[in-house]
């Protein structure tokens, strides 16, 4: 999952500069592109305790982590969030809260400010009420806009993250206008990446090339007009690029995610890859998990690469793309990411893109993220 600002490559000298804590998978929303696991409810009873998270924070800082994200699910569902922010600030992290906005009351905002929180990223699904509510499966639009304004009033720098799909991409101008009105510092048009719930709904969500070009033009015009007042990120979705994304800046190079149950992961989606073990901070030190665990060593560097990556001049640039996508779409996590035009499996991407273009597309209902929405028995 690529974030605002992480597009440029960064040499962390082998340290996990980016630590992401998924405090819980629980969430009041049911977004149709949620990147949490399909069997997220399985982890409800396994969430780390406050003391365990504090230990993770401490060990992460020892390992050289600098940027810290509190994410989920909805991290505000943890009532120890303020306490963890305070601890993180004390340890010297730059603290980011990544939230749906639901549950961010003025009281909690002030408490988070007091705890030292540096930045808030809030998601918004569209520029209008009915579409936002439909996409996130809850009456959340008005609340989110209100909370976004509260965040600015409280003086936080703010990222507005808009997951982009076929249903909302034509609203680029309206979204830009709304973000400008709110006074957003960073607006991120986050083209959906197709894993977990998003992959289930891909046929309905993937925009067409024409839609993307239109949105890009709207963004370019807004950048021209707004200058530095609002930084706008728009990353072309990998389905429409001829080269894969430099996923996570390379496996196990700078990103470390801790899942709600304490599993240390090279990225949030990695549990989709079958045949890997996911040890947790309950049994191991963060140092061992990051430096020595078989999971982190699996695709670190380029020893694991097969053709066409192995001899490719661009392998230092994109690291062969995304291991999860390679696994999900080709069946082998060590294959070249099929988003790459050089991949012998690139046709699977082209087929999805062609389907998105079909005029007489018969819409199917979107599968909302919720308990029991899908059976995962086939994954066992």
């Amino acid at each position, binding site marked *: 999952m690529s974030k605002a*600002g992480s597009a440029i490559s*960064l040499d*962390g000298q082998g340290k996990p*500069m980016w630590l992401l804590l998924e405090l819980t998978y629980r969430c009041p929303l049911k977004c149709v592109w949620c990147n949490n696991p399909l069997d997220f409810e399985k982890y409800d009873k396994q969430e780390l305790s406050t003391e365990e998270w504090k230990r993770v924070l401490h060990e992460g800082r020892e*390992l050289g982590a*600098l940027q810290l994200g509190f994410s989920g699910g909805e991290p505000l569902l943890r009532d120890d969030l303020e306490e963890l922010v305070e601890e993180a600030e004390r340890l010297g992290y730059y603290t980011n809260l990544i939230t749906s906005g639901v549950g961010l009351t003025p009281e909690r905002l002030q408490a988070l400010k007091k705890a030292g929180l*540096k*930045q808030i990223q809030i998601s918004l699904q569209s520029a209008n009420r009915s579409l936002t509510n439909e996409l996130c499966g809850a009456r959340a639009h008005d609340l989110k806009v209100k909370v976004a304004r509260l965040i600015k009033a409280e003086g936080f720098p703010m990222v507005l993250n808009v997951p982009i799909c076929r249903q909302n991409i034509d609203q680029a101008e309206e979204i830009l206008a709304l973000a400008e009105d709110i006074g957003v510092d960073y607006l991120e048009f986050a083209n959906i990446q197709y894993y977990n719930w998003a992959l289930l709904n891909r046929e309905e969500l993937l925009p067409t090339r024409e839609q993307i070009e239109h949105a890009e033009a709207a963004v370019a015009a807004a950048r021209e007009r707004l200058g*530095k007042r609002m*930084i706008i990120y728009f990353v072309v979705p990998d389905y429409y690029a001829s080269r894969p994304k430099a996923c996570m800046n390379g496996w196990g190079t700078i990103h470390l995610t801790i899942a709600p149950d304490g599993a240390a992961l090279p990225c949030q989606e990695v549990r989709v890859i079958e045949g890997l073990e996911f040890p947790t901070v309950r049994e191991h030190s963060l140092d061992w998990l990051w430096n020595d665990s078989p999971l982190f060593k699996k695709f670190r560097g380029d020893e694991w690469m097969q053709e066409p990556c192995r001899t490719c001049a661009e392998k230092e640039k994109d690291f062969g793309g995304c291991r999860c996508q390679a696994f999900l779409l080709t069946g082998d996590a060590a294959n070249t990411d099929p988003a790459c035009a050089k991949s012998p499996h690139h046709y699977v991407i082209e087929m999805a893109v062609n389907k998105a273009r079909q005029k007489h597309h018969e819409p199917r209902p979107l599968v909302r993220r919720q308990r029991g929405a899908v059976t995962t028995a086939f994954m066992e």
Partner: protein
Amino acid sequence: MSENMYFQPEHRPRLNPTYVFRWEKSQDTFVLLYPEGIVKLSASASEILKRCTGESTVADIVAELKDLFVDAADIERSIHRFLEVSHVKGWIGN
């Protein structure tokens, strides 16, 4: 100075409050931290940003860095270039 430069010698550049600038022991460098971003800074860039407090003028910064980096050729131009780039990136203002 060139007229199309944002900073003139009498200006007092100041770090944008959204950014946190500090020493990071684990990387042995100064870093700039901002929403979801990290920039590792070179020694000379760090010396410049250290002085972007809104108190020192560009002329002060140039004078102090000339003392620090006595061997550096054309340091004045490098400083101006860095300030302009930092301004474009939104790290500093006037």
